[in-house]
C-alpha cells in the first residue's frame, strides 16, 4: 500500500518541488496559516500528540510524548537533526533537497507549538547541496513573511539557523549534535539531564528528525486522527524506507507500515538481482541486528513486530544481501565504520570497536584463529553486556553496541561460515608451516 504524504510533490514535480512557488501552489503553508490564524500552541501540540507519530530518526520515540517533557522555562530551542550519516540511510537527503519548504513549514509549526523562537537545522557536512536548498528555502520564507518577527501577523517570532556538521557520524546522536552545535567536540553527553531539560546552551531543547518534522504540515492540515488512522495502530503514518543492496530496484520508498518484508523486497523492490537467493538483510540501519529469510520474511514491517523479533526499524535503512555476500566481509565493513566513527570518549567503544575490526580483518585475510569466534563474542559482551536486545551498554551512547550487532548477527546465523574461514586459515598455516595469529 502506498500513500503520499512526504513525497507526492517531489514525484509530481521532479524539477522544482523545492521552490516556494511550487510549494505554495500545491497546498504549502496552508497549515501554517491555519495554525497561526486559528490555533493556540497547545492545540498544535495536541494535534501532533493525537497523530501518534513516532520519531523517524531511529529511536522511534513518540514525538508528542517527547514534546511533553519540556519544562516551562524559556528560552528553549528546537533543533532539527539532519545529520543523516548511517550507512544505507538516505531519506532525509531527499526531503532536504527536494522539499525543503515542507520541512521549514514543519519547523515553524513545531516551534509555534513549543513556543520556541530559535530553531537550528544541523545538516551533515557531506550534504552541501541539501544545505544550500534548505538555506534558500529559509531565505524565501523570511522574504514571504513565514519567518522572522510577527509571522503572518500572528505576533509569533521565529529564526532558523542552518549549521553544517564537520563529518562525524556521532553528531547524529542528539547530545553530540548539541555539543557540536555549541562548538565543542562532537561527543555524546551523559544523560540525564536529557535535552528536553538541559540541551542546547543548557536550555530546554527538543531535537527532532528531518522526516518527523516534514510530516507536521500534513498532520496540522489534516488533523492528528487522520494521520493516526494510516497504517497499524502503533506504527502510524507513512515513512520513508531507504532500500539498498542486492535488490533490483533500490531507492527511497514512502510506505505505510504493516506489509511484510517479503512484500518490500520482492514486490516493491523487484526482488534480488540476477535472480540470486536472498541471504539476509539489515532491517533498520547498520546498527540493527540482521534478519534472515527463514525466520523473518513474513514478519510485518512495524516498529513493534521488528522489535519483537530482536531488531529494529530504526531509521528505515534496509540493506539487502544476496547469496554471493561474504558475511564476514560485510560485518567487517560495518564494524570498521563504527570504529572509525567512535568519538573516543568511552574506553569500551574506543578500544573495543577497533579491536573487533582488527580481528575480523585478520580472519578475512586468512589469519583467523579458532579462538577468535568466542573472543569476538566476549569483546562484544564487554561493550554490550549480555548481548541482548535492546542492548545493554558499558558506554555512554549506543554507538559501541551498534558495532556488536553485525558480529552477533553473523555468529547467530552464519557461524559455520565464520568457522570455515578460520579453518581455512589453519589449513593455510599448516601448509606454510607457520603459526597463525
Amino acid at each position, binding site marked *: 500500500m502506498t500513500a503520499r504524504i512526504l513525497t507526492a510533490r517531489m514525484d509530481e514535480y521532479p524539477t522544482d518541488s523545492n521552490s516556494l512557488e511550487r510549494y505554495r501552489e500545491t497546498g504549502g503553508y496552508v497549515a501554517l496559516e491555519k495554525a497561526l490564524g486559528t490555533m493556540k500552541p497547545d492545540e498544535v501540540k495536541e494535534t501532533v500528540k493525537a497523530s501518534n507519530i513516532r520519531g523517524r530518526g531511529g529511536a522511534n520515540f513518540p514525538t508528542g510524548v517527547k514534546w511533553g517533557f519540556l519544562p516551562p522555562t524559556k528560552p528553549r530551542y528546537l533543533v532539527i537533526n539532519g545529520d543523516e550519516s548511517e550507512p544505507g540511510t538516505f531519506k532525509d537527503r531527499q526531503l532536504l533537497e527536494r522539499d525543503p519548504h515542507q520541512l521549514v513549514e514543519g519547523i515553524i509549526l513545531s516551534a509555534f507549538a513549543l513556543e520556541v523562537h530559535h530553531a537550528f537545522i544541523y545538516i551533515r557536512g557531506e550534504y552541501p547541496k541539501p544545505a544550500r536548498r534548505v538555506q534558500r528555502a529559509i531565505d524565501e520564507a523570511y522574504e514571504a513573511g513565514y519567518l522572522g518577527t510577527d509571522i503572518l501577523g500572528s505576533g509569533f517570532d521565529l529564526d532558523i539557523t542552518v549549521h553544517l556538521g564537520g563529518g562525524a557520524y556521532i553528531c547524529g546522536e542528539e547530545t553530540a549534535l548539541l555539543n557540536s552545535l555549541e562548538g565543542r567536540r562532537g561527543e555524546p553527553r551523559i544523560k540525564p539531564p536529557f535535552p528536553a531539560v538541559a540541551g542546547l546552551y543548557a536550555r530546554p531543547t527538543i531535537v527532532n528528525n528531518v522526516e518527523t518534522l516534514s510530516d507536521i504540515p500534513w498532520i496540522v492540515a489534516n488533523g492528528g486522527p487522520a494521520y493516526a488512522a494510516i497504517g497499524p495502530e502503533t506504527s502510524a503514518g507513512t515513512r520513508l524506507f531507504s532500500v539498498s543492496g542486492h535488490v533490483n530496484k533500490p531507492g527511497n520508498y514512502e510506505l505505510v507500515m504493516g506489509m511484510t518484508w517479503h512484500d518490500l523486497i520482492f514486490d516493491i523492490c523487484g526482488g534480488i538481482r540476477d535472480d540470486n537467493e536472498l541471504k539476509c538483510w539489515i532491517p533498520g540501519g547498520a546498527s540493527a541486528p540482521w534478519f534472515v529469510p527463514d525466520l523473518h520474511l513474513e514478519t510485518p514491517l512495524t516498529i513493534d513486530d521488528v522489535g519483537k523479533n530482536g531488531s529494529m526499524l530504526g531509521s528505515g535503512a534496509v540493506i539487502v544481501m544476496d547469496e554471493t555476500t561474504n558475511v564476514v566481509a560485510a560485518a567487517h565493513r560495518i564494524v570498521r565504520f563504527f570504529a572509525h566513527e567512535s568519538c573516543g570518549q568511552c*574506553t569500551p567503544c*574506543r578500544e573495543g570497536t577497533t579491536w573487533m575490526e582488527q580481528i575480523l580483518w585478520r580472519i578475512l585475510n586468512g589469519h583467523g584463529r579458532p579462538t577468535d569466534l568466542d573472543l569476538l563474542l566476549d569483546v562484544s559482551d*564487554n561493550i554490550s553486556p549480555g548481548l541482548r536486545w535492546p542492548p545493554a551498554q558499558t558506554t555512554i551512547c549506543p554507538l559501541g553496541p551498534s558495532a556488536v550487532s553485525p558480529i552477533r548477527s553473523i555468529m547467530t546465523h552464519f557461524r559455520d561460515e565464520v568457522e570455515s574461514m578460520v579453518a581455512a586459515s589453519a589449513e593455510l598455516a599448516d601448509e606454510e608451516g607457520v603459526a597463525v595469529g
Partner: protein
Amino acid sequence: MAEQPEAVTITIDGVAHEVPAGQLVIAAAQAKGTYVPRFCWHPRMKPVGMCRMCLVEIDTPRGKMLTTSCTTPVADGMAIDTESEVVQKAQEGILEFLLINHPLDCPVCDRGGECPLQDQTVAYGPGESRFVEEKRHYEKPIEISDLVLLDRERCILCARCTRFSDEISGDPLIEFKDRGSHTQVITVPGEPFVSYFSGNTVQICPVGALTAKPYRFRARPWDLEAVESVSPVDSFGSKVSVQSSQNEIVRINGIDNDATNQSWLSDKDRFSFQYLQSAERVTEPLIRDGDGFRTASWGEALELVSEQLSALIGTEIAGLGGARNTNEEVFAFQKFLRTEIVTPHLDAQLDDGLDHELMAGISPRATVNDLEKARTVLLWAGDLKEELPVLYLRVRRAATALGAKLIVVHPRATGLDDVAALKITYKPGEGPDVLRKLAAGAVGEGDFHAARQLLDDGPVVVLCGRTGLTEDPRLAEAVAAFAATLPDATVMPVVRRGNVFGAIDMGMAPTLLPGRVPTTNAAGRTAVENRWGPIPEGIGYDAAGILEALVAGELKALAMLGVDPVRDFPRPRLARAALEAAEFVVAFDLFLSHSSRLADVVLPVAGFAEVEGTVTNLEGRVQKVNRLTPRPGQARPVWSVLEDLARRMGGELGALSAEALSKEIAAVAPAYRGVTWDLLDWGEGREGVVVPLAEGEQVLAYEPVDAGLRATTSRLTLHLGRVLYDDGMMTRMSPAIAGLMPDARVYLHPRDAGSLAAGSGQTAEVAGDEGTVTLEVGIDPTLAVGTVYVPFNLPATADLGVSDAVKITPLRTEGEA
C-alpha cells in the same frame, strides 16, 4: 552556618548506609569504605564518566542497570551493587580494553609502582592478554612545554589533564584531537602548554603519560622517602608531600588540604626545590676578606659575630628578615634581637608588603574557605596568578564553579579578568579616587554602581593588598576600612612572601610582640618581660627606617635572616647604601645573595625540608613543616646558631630544639596558645589550625583607617608588578624553572606609546627616582592610560626601584630619523 544536606538511605552491596543527598555514588561508597575503581573521576573536578571503570549495578524500575558511579547521585532507597558478576566482568573488560594498546613499559615508566593502571589491573583486571594485534604507535615522548613531556602511547584518555587545564587553571592549552582509537591529547600547534600549573596534570595523570622533566628517571617510587610539609614558595600555605631519594628531594606533590590548596600546586611550588641542591649553597661560615670571603670554622665565625655585636649592643643594631623561616626560627631571631641585642628595630618585611598590624589583626579576617560561600569577591591586590597562584585557583573556582561575582581592581590585565563580573582598571596613584567612587556607588562612571551593588550582596570576601610596589600600602588599609562598612564582608590581607604572616605573628615587627600583642600594650609587655627580662621600650624602626638610619649612621650594625633588601626592598639604592654604610653586617643565609654578598660574616643555615617547625599562612592558619633531607656541609638550623651566639654573648635563648621553641611560643604568644606540634601532626590540626584557637587570645585590636590619601597624578605613572618567576633565589637557583623568567620589558599603553613615538620592540630608557634601566618596549592595551608597567625583580629591571613618575626616552638606532 553551613546548611547540612539531608541524609538519604542507600544500600551498598547489601548493607544500608545513610549518606548526604546529592553525593555521587562513587564518593558515597568510598566514604562508607567501599572503593570503586576509577581513572577519569577526580574528586576536585566535574565528572565525565569516560573511562567507564567505575561501573556499578543500580536497581531501577527497569531492572538492574550498569551505571557509572561517578556520574550518578545517590537517591533515597537506591540499591547499589559494586561487586556483582556483571560488574566484575565489566571491570575486567574495561581494564583489558585499556591495556590492549598500552605499551606496558612499566619497568622504565616513572609511574611504575604507584600507577593506578597497574594497581587496578592487579585488583580488578584480567590475568592475561588476548590481544595479538599490533599496538597503537605514536612518536614519543613529545615535549609539550619546558617542564612536561607527553607519551601518547601510555595515555588512557581519561581527560584529567585537559579538564584540569580548562576547568581548574583556566589555561586550556591541551585538548583532545582526532577521534575513536586515534584520539590523542595534544597541544595546539605553535602553542606549547605554558601554564603556571602544568605540574598538576603530571600528578593527576593515572598513568605515566605525562611526566615532569625534573623527576623523569630520577627514582623509583618505592625507594622514595616522604614527609608532609607546606610549600615554602608563598604565603598561601599549600600542603605538600616532599619526596626524596638518596637524601635529595626529587619531587614535590600536592596534598589535598580542603582548607587551602585542595591538592593543587603551582609549578613554582612543585619544581623550585632544586634551589636547595644548588652548588651555590653556602655550606661553610664565611668571613669577609677584602672584596671576597674566606671560609671559617663555626667557632671562629661566631666568636667574631659575638664580639662585633657585643661591642654595639643596644639600640644601634637592627634585624631584618625571617619571612622565609619557620615560626620557631623567627621567634628565636626576634627574641635574640630583643633580649640579647636589646634592640627595638626589627622587621620581617621590606616595605614591600602591608602594615604589620593590618596583617596580624584585620577583623573579621577571611579564611580561604570563605571563598566557598562568598557571593561576591573583591580583589584589589596584586595579580594573584603571578603572586599567589594557588589562591588564584581558589578565587577562580569561586568565580566559576561556585558562581561568586568577582570584582577585580588593578592597573592592568590580571589572570582572573576572564572570570570577573566587573573589572576596574586604574592608573596607580589614582587609587584613592577609585575607592571613593566605589564606596559611593558612583553612577554613570564605569562600573562603580554595579560593583557597589554586588558588594552589598554578602557574604563578601575582600582580598586587599598592593597591586604593585609603587602602590601606597595605606591604600590597602583604606580598602580594608571600606570593607568594614560593608554589611557582610571578611578581609584577607594579601602579601605573598613565604612565612611573612608567621614572622609577624612571632613579633618580628617593630610594632608587635609575639602572638599579635602591640609593643605598646603594657600588660602584654609585662607578660613577656616576666619570662625574658627587660626588652627595649617604644616602637623601633621598620625596614625603611632601619635602612635610612644605617645610611645616616644612627644605626651601626645589621643582622639579616634570609633576606635580600638589595633586590626586594623597593628602593635598591638605599638598601645597598645602608649595607655599605653599616659597620658590621651578619647574614644568616642559604646563598650569597645580592645583600649577603655585602655582609661581613655569612652563616650557612638550614633551608626548607632541612628543619622541622611551623608556618602560618595568609589566613592565620598554622601548619607543620617537616624535615626530610640532611643539611648540606656545615649548615645549621637558625635556632641553634642563635642559641650558640647568645651563649657566647653571655646570655641564653632557651632554644634547645625547634620543638622547645614551639612550646615557648604557645606560652608567650597569646594568639598561639594551644598550638602544639602534636595537634598539628596527629590531632585535629592536620589541615592546620587558624589562630587564635578557642584557648588563644587576639590582643591586637586593629581598626583599619582610611588615611584620606590624595590621588597623585603625573603624566606617566609607574606600576611595578610582581611576576611568578622573578629573579629570586628559588627561581634563579632551580634550573627547571630558571629559564621561565619572562623577558623584561617596559609596557606602555598604545596611546602613550604613540605620543612617545615608542614602538614595540624598540628600546627605551626608563628613568625613575631610584635608577634608570634600558628595556625593550612592549605594547599593552590592557593598561590604564598613563601607566607604565615594568615587572619587578627581573635581572634587567632590578635597578629601577619605585618612584611615582617615570620618564620614558625611546632610544633610536643610528640612521633612524
